């Protein structure tokens, strides 16, 4: 198919608008249409996987149409191994979210479904843009549906959370816009290829690096700009939390892969230590913060921040492992094997995918409980296993995956990143590995308090176990978590060539003197 990517971007948007037109008064029709659109989009997106050529790092499924000719801005889209996986994650999560919101959302159901569909198209646009302004447009536009989702269907404090979320990300992004314009004036193009080749002095790179960093660090989110996330997650409806955790955070990680490393390689190397320290603070400190949470959603939100720390750690650890000599040969400075650097990069990517499944599943688990008892407090529960055995099975599986149990996807990504960072510095690996203990502690402690033990709240005994719809959603995610945990090789194969290319870009200096 010639324009498969465009179809993936615009079909959900057009579908979402149609759902809006159908309106809240005919919400059943709206629900069926939404689920149909999301299934079709997911099925179509599988063609990206089957039609993908794993032997090249070049962009595939490329479309390039002039858009704003005065600024040489093009509608230029295409994917490589990195973005393809994230697009698949997006289409799968949106499908599951729409199923999960089926009966739960009674207030303005059509608007709810439409917001998720439109957001799906915009996020696919983010992951496939090869033009910086196109990227920025999708990046910012995807905030709008999320703002409305949190603000309209959120909890008590939703207005504060929605506006905080929007302003935080907006502030982060505008500096990225300024630096993109600056590079356009230097190089005459907004195309990512041109930006990757643009020589920049270290001062310029440093400014641009921090501008990018602000945009992406807010999204990931990294310590200390993470404070919007617990608010947004706690207040958002279940579906909103799922998309936030599973996909929106990945936009930040993707930004590091696609923008920071290739465009500002020298500055990235220069400041890698700072980023790593911030990542470690997130991993360890936020892990301890998660330990003391009383609210289940807040606990998972903090756990998300902590787990996303592995992504930035894995990415930036490469600068202390390998360097490139003047002939363009990559050599190891830490004495380890060259392969270990891929462990870090690919581990970061696997961690993003895995966190997408696990955090989505955990938020859905909390959502299932919240629908029944309308409480997110850990203390309101206890002994849920007595009334909901099937559900508890899933919940424990996801909790163990979150704690990094071998055999689940959570183990693979974290283990790869830890191995990779061990080559860089023993202490990086040491602190990162600590999260395996803390993570196990806060997750299992929550499981113990919620699912096991005696029933303290009489309402818990009246809980009904999950229905077929909920079972289906959780089962799909459980399969995904186990599949990636047992056999991650296909994912690595798909992204490996892209990662080799990324590593070269990240190590090739762009200083004018060297060129």
């Amino acid at each position, binding site marked *: 198919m010639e324009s498969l990517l465009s179809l993936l971007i615009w079909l959900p948007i057009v579908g979402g608008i149609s759902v809006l037109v159908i309106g809240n008064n005919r919400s059943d029709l709206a629900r069926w249409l939404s689920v149909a659109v999301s299934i079709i989009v997911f099925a179509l997106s599988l063609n990206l996987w089957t039609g993908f050529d794993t032997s090249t790092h070049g962009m595939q499924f490329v479309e390039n149409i002039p858009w*704003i000719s*005065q600024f040489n801005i093009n509608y230029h889209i295409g994917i490589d191994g990195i973005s393809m996986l994230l697009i698949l994650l997006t289409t799968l999560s949106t499908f599951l979210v729409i199923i999960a919101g089926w009966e739960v959302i009674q207030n303005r159901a059509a608007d709810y479904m439409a917001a998720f569909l439109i957001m799906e198209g915009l996020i696919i646009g983010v992951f496939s843009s090869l033009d910086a302004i196109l990227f920025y*447009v999708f990046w910012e536009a995807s905030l*709008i549906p999320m703002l409305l989702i949190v603000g*309209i269907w959120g909890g008590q404090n939703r207005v504060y959370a929605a*506006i905080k979320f929007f302003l935080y990300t907006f502030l982060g992004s505008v500096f990225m816009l300024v630096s993109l*314009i*600056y590079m356009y004036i230097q190089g005459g193009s907004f195309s990512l290829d041109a930006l990757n080749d643009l020589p920049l002095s270290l001062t310029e790179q440093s400014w641009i690096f921090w501008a990018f960093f602000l945009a992406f660090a807010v999204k990931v989110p990294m310590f200390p700009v993470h404070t919007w996330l617990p608010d947004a997650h706690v207040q958002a409806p279940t579906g909103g939390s799922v998309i936030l955790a599973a996909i929106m955070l990945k936009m930040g990680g993707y930004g590091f892969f696609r923008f920071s490393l290739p465009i500002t390689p020298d500055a990235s190397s220069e400041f890698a230590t700072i980023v790593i320290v911030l990542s470690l603070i997130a991993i360890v400190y936020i892990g301890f913060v998660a330990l003391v949470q009383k609210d289940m959603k807040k606990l998972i939100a903090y756990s998300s921040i902590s787990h996303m720390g592995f992504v930035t750690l894995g990415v930036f650890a490469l600068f202390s492992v390998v360097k490139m000599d003047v002939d363009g040969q990559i050599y190891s400075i830490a004495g380890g094997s060259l392969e270990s650097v891929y462990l870090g990069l690919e581990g970061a990517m696997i961690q993003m995918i895995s966190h997408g499944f696990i955090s989505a599943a955990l938020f859905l688990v909390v959502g299932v409980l919240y629908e029944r008892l309308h409480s997110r407090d850990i203390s309101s529960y206890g002994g849920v296993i007595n009334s909901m055995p099937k559900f508890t099975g899933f919940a424990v599986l996801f909790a163990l995956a979150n704690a990094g149990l071998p055999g689940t996807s959570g183990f693979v990504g974290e283990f790869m990143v830890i191995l990779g960072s061990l080559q860089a510095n023993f202490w990086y690996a040491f602190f990162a590995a600590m999260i395996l203990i803390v993570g196990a502690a806060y997750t299992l402690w929550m499981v113990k308090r919620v699912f096991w033990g005696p029933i303290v709240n009489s309402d818990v005994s009246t809980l009904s176990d999950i229905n077929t719809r909920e079972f289906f959603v959780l089962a799909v995610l459980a399969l995904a978590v186990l599949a990636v945990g047992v056999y991650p090789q296909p994912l690595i194969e798909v992204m490996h060539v892209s990662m080799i290319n990324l590593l070269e870009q990240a190590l090739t200096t762009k200083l004018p003197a060297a060129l």
Partner: protein
Amino acid sequence: MIDYQFNTADLFFALPELFMVAAIALILLLDLFVSERFQNLTYYLTQSTLAITGYFAFNLIGESAVIFDGTFVLDTIGSYFKVFMMIFSIVALVYSRHYLSVHNLLKGEYFILSLLSVFGMMVMVSAHSMLTIYLGLEIMSLSLYTLIAIARDRAVAIEAALKYFVLGAIASGLLLYGMSMIYGITGSLDIGQIAAFATGANLISEQVLILNFGLVFLVIGIAFKFGAVPFHMWVPDVYQGAPTSVTMFLSTVPKIAATAMLVRLLIDGLGGLQAYWADLFMILAILSIGLGSLVALMQTNIKRLLAYSTISHIGFILLGFITGVVEGYGAAAFYVLAYVLMSLTAFGTIIVLNKQGFEADQIVDFRGLSKHSPWFALIMLFVMLSMAGVPPFIGFYSKLFILQQVISAGYIYLAVAAVVFAVISAYYYLQIIKTMYFDDTEKEVTVTAPMDMRIILSINGALILVLGLMPSYWMELAISLF
């Protein structure tokens, strides 16, 4: 001067203005004699006049001439500005009629005064002499003062009119003073001759000094008409006090005329002194963006909020002029047109909420709009996000265009300051979205606006998105104007 020969063929180039002034005279007479039953006649005649004038102006696109002894110029930018002014005026009057009819203000004078002020703006747009500029400015301003006072039983409206009149008169005085300085040193009122003098190679420093002295006062006059800080004092009070339909008119079409005045005086006339006035504009621009963004945070009256929002938009427009290159001027022109489009939609949505005897001018009046009238809430959502500069709406591209020019001219710190304030201003735009979408209310919001207004407003709102998706043609057009 003596050997000036009147040439009948020249009249052709002023056809839009001549037709307009004849039509105004005719409508004024007719309005006296038509009975109450044909009250709408004046309205329809006014709209037809605007449409026909716009058509004449459209047909003159591409022609260029300086006529009437160098006092009147016809060129591409003038013709395009006139066409846009006509289109926006027609839209503004469609919205105004609903407002006027629910507040018992529907009188023929309103439309005639609107036409007169549009005529004044056309004169400003086509002026090629400082005298013509002043004439146009006064025709426009005097009509606007009266329009504000048309709600003569409302104390706030009278106060607004008086305030605008007094401050406007002072600004006119300052502008005239500047003009007299320029006239004194150049010996001519003709823009072309002033330009020749100002770009002359053998200016002595005293001449430059006096030119600059006059320039400062011209800039003040222009800044007043735009409402740029620190000459913005009238804006919030007048916006709040005037009837909403007049506020809407005031905040849209005259800004195009003010841009034209800037172009005629500073670019066509004193383009040689660009480096001097660019410095002044830099201060005006950054103060306007800053103050407009910060003070708006505390407003509860939506007209007052939009007044401060306008001030901040004006800052962005002025930023485009500091670059001193054609693309920068184009960016500013694009911003003006985008701003007018957004502002019309914003005020249109406020007017839609007006009902018989109910003045919607508080932010809380938007409460629950998304439930009862999702379509108009969506339009207001578009406008607010567009004004905040969020893609993919047109307001983003106008900011992008300006920022690109500002950075290209080497003022990165100005661009950074501008975007920081843009984020701050996003907060109050979000407050309106919050009021419409997130707040619960039992109150029913009913929309009683007539169908023509609903259709035009829908197109207007949709354009904010559609032009945002394909801004290319309009950007090219904006650059080609200069």
